């Protein structure tokens, strides 16, 4: 039976409409498919990248990797694997593991065991294996294997091989080093203890065992504080252990002294200890080490040394005291020696110009006067030698013209030159410059040189003084020669010329007098200025040449001339009549000074104490007044320095100090108290007159 037309039409209509809907569904599905395809491509790319990354990781690992299936067939491997085994990659690819092992076995120390182990692993199929493979060439490989699972299902086995030869060597080296350290630390004389970060003992060397009374085994793991009991030597209280600081602060703690280690049996020994942190390569503190040693013997020696030192210091103090006493004695001696000379010299000076004295007596008086002066000079020389030898020669550097100083020296010696009819040649043109020097001392040198030449030059001889300036280093120096036509000397005598008390020939000393200290003093003064004095002689009868070399010095640092008194005589100078307050407790000196001053035309008010002087000054101030004070420094009821300070401040007086003490410090004290001049006893009349004149002119 055929279907009715409308039935068939209806079916066709429904089917075709369905077809349209199906087409739409198909297109939708296709779109989904395209999307899915795109997603898949993306996933594929991601997967490819992931696989490439995994492959790269697989290849970049330092381990050799072999992957096999359960039957031992190679499914994968990396390049490192073939490198480690030295096999061609093509052979490893798709081979049986046992075949590869057979090729590699010749390198293995025990190939039979090597192959048997691989077979055993495949047969017993353990989850994991670990073996060390030793090679004939000494290499050592570490081999792991583990079952490979995919979706939790075992699919094969992954074998990793690592060359640990170097780490084994390093391990061995480390072990040897540890042994070396152990032996070394066991051999050294110091005690060594190490602790971990919890400050528990990890190591002790035999010395530490002895000191602490603990064996290393018994101490291991114990708190350090229990093993090492340290107390302060002084307080007997527990002393901090430096290892605590090393651990907590991570720094080296230097030797700490004066601690005592109390050993396990209670015995004690003084120790010196230090500690340092032990750090790993990253700098992290992993423990600390303490080194200490017994300082008992040393401490005993130190105490002995301390006693010696104390004794030495005591002796030194005593010596210094003695030295000071000696200096003071010498100063006092000088003062006491000079003081009596002052009136004598004063009297002789005053008589020298007295025309009423018979000529024969006058000649005798002149002899006495010269000998008194020599006596005074000898005292001064002795003091100078003492100063130079002790390094206590004090210089007052100022700007001076050397030519002027030479002229002053010549002036001082003029009487002697004239007496021997000696010719004096002088060529100082080039040296007419300023230098930085102590004026008095350089004048003393020049005078000594001239006096020396005068002394040893026969009558009618010639003395020449020449000077030149030359560059020296950064500055200049002046070279002054004093040449005579005297008796000369042997070369061997030259060396002794400048040594105190070693004048060339005792015969000479006896013949010409003096202690022969002048050249030694002069040489010392020259050296104090940074210069020198040398001597030259062609021999006996061929004259001598003395050369004084002085650096010109730093003129900027030198003081301006202070006008201190020199030895230069003041001939022909006259001063006005002064009212002079003379303060002198030495009766003879006071009398002769009063007479001398009177002869100079001055009016003298003479007193012997500070009190009288102040009284007189007060009294005279109300009357005719006082023009000048001439005072001894050492007075019975006080110091002349205090007196001058009072007179200067109250009455505005100026003064001249008279003192047996001629040290520089003495001169400075005089100036500081208000004295304008400081004259050293015995007082030379000429010098005194000059000082009075200068004060008058200054005023």
């Amino acid at each position: 039976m055929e279907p009715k037309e409308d039935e068939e039409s209806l079916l066709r209509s429904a089917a075709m409409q369905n077809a349209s809907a199906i087409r739409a569904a198909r297109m939708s599905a296709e779109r989904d498919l395209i999307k899915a395809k795109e997603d898949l491509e993306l996933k594929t790319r991601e997967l490819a990248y992931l696989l490439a990354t995994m492959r790269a990781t697989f290849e970049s690992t330092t381990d050799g990797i072999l992957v096999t299936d359960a039957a031992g067939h190679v499914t994968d491997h990396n390049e490192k694997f073939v490198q480690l085994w030295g096999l061609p990659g093509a052979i490893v690819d798709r081979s049986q593991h046992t075949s590869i092992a057979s090729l590699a076995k010749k390198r293995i120390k025990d190939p039979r065991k090597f192959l048997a182990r691989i077979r055993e692993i495949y047969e017993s199929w353990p989850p994991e294996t670990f073996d060390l493979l030793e090679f004939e060439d000494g290499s050592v490989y570490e081999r792991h294997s583990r079952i490979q699972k995919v979706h939790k299902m075992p699919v094969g086995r992954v074998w990793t091989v690592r060359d640990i030869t170097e780490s084994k060597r390093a391990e061995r080296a480390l072990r040897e080093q540890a042994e070396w350290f152990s032996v070394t630390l066991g051999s050294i004389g110091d005690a060594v203890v190490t602790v971990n970060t919890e400050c528990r003992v990890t190591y002790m060397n035999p010395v530490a065992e002895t000191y602490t009374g603990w064996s290393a085994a018994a101490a291991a793991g114990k708190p350090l504080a229990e093993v090492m009991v340290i107390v302060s030597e002084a307080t007997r209280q527990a002393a901090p252990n430096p290892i605590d600081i090393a651990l907590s602060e991570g720094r080296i703690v230097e030797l700490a002294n004066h601690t005592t280690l109390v050993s396990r049996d209670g015995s004690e020994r003084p120790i010196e200890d230090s500690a340092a942190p032990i750090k790993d390569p990253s700098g992290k503190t992993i423990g600390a080490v303490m080194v200490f040693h017994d300082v008992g013997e040393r401490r005993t020696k130190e105490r002995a040394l301390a006693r010696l030192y104390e004794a030495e210091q005591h002796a030194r103090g005593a010596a210094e005291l003695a030295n000071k006493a000696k200096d003071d004695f010498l100063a006092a001696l000088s003062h006491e020696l000079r003081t009596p000379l002052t009136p004598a010299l004063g009297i002789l000076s005053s008589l020298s110009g007295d025309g009423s004295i018979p000529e024969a007596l006058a000649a005798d008086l002149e002899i006495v006067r010269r000998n008194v002066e020599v006596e005074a000079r000898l005292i001064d020389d002795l003091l100078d030698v003492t100063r130079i030898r002790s390094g206590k020669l004090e210089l007052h550097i100022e700007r001076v013209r050397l030519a002027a100083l030479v002229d002053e020296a010549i002036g001082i010696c003029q009487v002697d030159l004239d007496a021997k009819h000696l010719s004096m040649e002088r060529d100082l043109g080039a040296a007419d410059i300023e230098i930085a020097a102590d004026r008095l001392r350089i004048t003393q040198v020049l005078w000594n040189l001239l006096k020396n030449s005068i002394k040893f030059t026969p009558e009618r001889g010639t003395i020449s003084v020449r000077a030149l300036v030359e560059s020296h280093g950064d500055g200049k120096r002046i070279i002054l020669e004093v040449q005579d036509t005297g008796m000369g000397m042997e070369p061997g005598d030259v060396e002794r010329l400048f040594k105190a008390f070693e004048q060339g020939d005792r015969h000479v000393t006896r013949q010409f007098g003096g202690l022969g200290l002048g050249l030694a003093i002069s040489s010392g003064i020259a050296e104090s200025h940074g210069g020198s004095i040398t001597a030259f002689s062609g021999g006996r009868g061929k004259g001598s040449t003395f050369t004084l070399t002085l650096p010109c010095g730093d003129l900027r640092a030198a003081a301006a001339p202070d006008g201190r008194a020199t030895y230069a005589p003041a001939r022909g100078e006259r001063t006005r009549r002064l009212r002079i307050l003379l303060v002198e407790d030495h009766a003879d000196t006071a009398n002769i000074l009063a007479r001398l001053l009177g002869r100079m035309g001055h009016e003298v008010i003479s007193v012997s104490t500070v009190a009288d002087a102040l009284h007189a000054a007060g009294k005279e101030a109300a009357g005719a007044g006082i023009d000048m004070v001439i005072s001894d420094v050492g007075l019975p009821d006080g110091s002349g320095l205090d007196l001058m300070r009072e007179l200067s401040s109250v009455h505005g007086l100026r003064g001249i100090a008279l003192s047996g003490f001629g040290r520089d410090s003495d001169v400075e004290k005089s100036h500081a108290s208000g004295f304008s001049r400081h004259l050293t006893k015995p007082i030379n009349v000429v010098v005194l007159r000059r000082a009075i004149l200068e004060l008058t002119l200054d005023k």
Partner: protein
Amino acid sequence: MTIPTEPIGSIPRTPALIEALLATDGADPKLDPLYDEAIRDTIERFEETESPVITDGEQRKYHNFGTYCVHGLENTSPEGFMLPFVAGHTRRWPRLTAGPFRYKRYADSFLSAAQQYSRMPVKQAVISPSALSLMYPANGVPGYSREEFINDLLNEHEKEVRLCLEKGAHCVQVDFTEGRLAVKIDPTGNLLNSFIDLNNLALARFSKDQRRRIGIHTCPGGDRDSTHSADVDYAELLPMLFELQAGNFYIALAGERDRVRVLKIIRKYMKPEHQVFVGVISTIDPRIETPEEVRDRVIEASKYIPMDQLGTTDDCGYAPFSDDTSTTRDTAFAKIRSRILGTRLAAAVIGGK
């Protein structure tokens, strides 16, 4: 060597069941014991045939191979389109009256019942989405678009197939008897193409491995020893049929007038990944083929189909409609037995070469 051989599915119901079905609706729970007995008996007799793959004979498919899944749905009516058979009778398809479209039952329930009685591989036949698509009426369903219906249809079909696969069906056979009918209705081929598209949309939801366990059965329709589209040339169907993304094809061949011509068409369009089961038993022929006949048909087919892709089957089910009594169970099993034996003979002959 062995040549795979499988039945299509249906076996005439037992007389007791047929009698009961005439008296009541097939979904009546009172029929369950009869269904169970019929299944047990069917499987027992299947095993006796030594068939390597069996079915439950579709004893519980009511009322037929196609509507079993929607029978009893409240949103259907029996006034769907009509299937005319050459013998003169018709079968009417149900019509959807409201959305959404859902199955009343899934074929995996039949599979589970069969698996209780046998450890043999059991295949399960399901109706194609394209056949059920004809339930949507030409004038539409108010509030439920055709597109929504197609989508629901695909989901339901997917669910049914997936359930069967998951329960261990040896194979899930999609009955696509409307293929030739589609050509008959629309000679332009557009309708067939849309059926192919629809079924491919369903197949695309499965993996390649799953699709290897899914087959497509095509035949000219068989009911009461008659067909509805045997007059449609296979040449118009097979090229498109092999576009379906299934792994297995069950093609009625024994009843064809010119089998060689059909075999040549199959050879031309089948793909290397296809397993082609050719019909070696004509289910509408009441005569029982001898094993030798079957052997010869297999050998004939082997000349056109590579041996590793060749399998044998029956042209169609023996009773796609539950009330079909044109063939007895004995005849059906005898014919199956002949197929088994004939296929073995052919394998021996071909293997002996």
